[in-house]
């Protein structure tokens, strides 16, 4: 079970959250100009990163607010929690912030 630090509510069980997929997927500036392949890639094609991955989460059972999270897909280590709309934080800069870093139980499982 991941322990996720909601920016509004503090640490809560993973079961209180919903996953929102990859973060920073910008809506195309002019969707009409996209061909079918480009549109399909916008809708369905996502990175399959091994390592630090920026993703969206929703605290659905708590404050019902979205936020972004930088999580390592190998170790499950949560490296940063940051607001929607904010740029992806520099991994090295985000690491020393203790509040936003949660060592999950069973991370090495």
């Amino acid at each position, binding site marked *: 079970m991941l322990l996720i630090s909601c920016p*509004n*509510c*503090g640490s*809560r*069980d993973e*079961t*209180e959250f919903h996953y929102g997929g990859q973060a920073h997927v910008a809506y195309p500036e002019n969707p009409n100009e996209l061909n079918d392949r480009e549109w399909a890639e916008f809708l369905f094609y996502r990175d399959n990163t091994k390592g630090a991955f920026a993703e969206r989460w929703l605290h659905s*059972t*708590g*404050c*019902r*607010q979205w936020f972004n999270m930088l999580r390592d897909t190998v170790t499950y280590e949560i490296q940063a929690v940051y607001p929607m709309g904010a740029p992806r934080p520099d991994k090295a800069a985000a690491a020393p912030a203790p509040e936003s870093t949660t060592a999950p139980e069973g991370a090495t499982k």
Partner: protein
Amino acid sequence: MAETAAPETKKNLFLRTSPAALLRAAFDTGSVPGTVELSEITFLTMVGLRVDRNSDAGQRIWSVTGGLPAACGAVAGSGDTSVLWLGPEEFLVVAPMEAHESLGGDLIQALREALADGEGQVVDLSANRTTFELTGPRARAVLEKGCSLDLHPRVLKAGTALSTEIGNIPVVLWKTGDESYRLFPRASFADFLGRWLLDAMREYASPEVP
């Protein structure tokens, strides 16, 4: 609308059935007096608020409720009207049954007028959730069987309300006193949560195993 229809509506309200009405007898027999007791508080008036507390509309609503909580866990309000924090711009007003317009109360109307054309929402949610009251020295132990929050009094103080999961269902948990809690499950979960709590309470009816 309410004025002309009030007497007739009031009479019909006695026919209302609360979400956990079928469990009333079970709550009575399942309660262990002085140890842990469970009951349903029926038909409290609840209003969903969505408003920025720092906006003009937020300030107007503030003056009706007697405050809006600032952060997660906080409860504001005055008298018997309480406002629970659900999100940065989302609150739940909990007031006695008589505050509802069907019983001649004017709380919801006053909130609507306070919001006026400001950005936000005032929605009557009185039928959305029911209220369970769990009291007694073992109340915390019962809740701890199905709630991952730290309920120890050094962390969870009386007067705190948190939206979380209890028994795997979404519940707003409000610690109203050192040994008393109010739980707000949605109406459709009331039966499940009632039975879950009864099951969790059962062991405290037997003598403690040394």
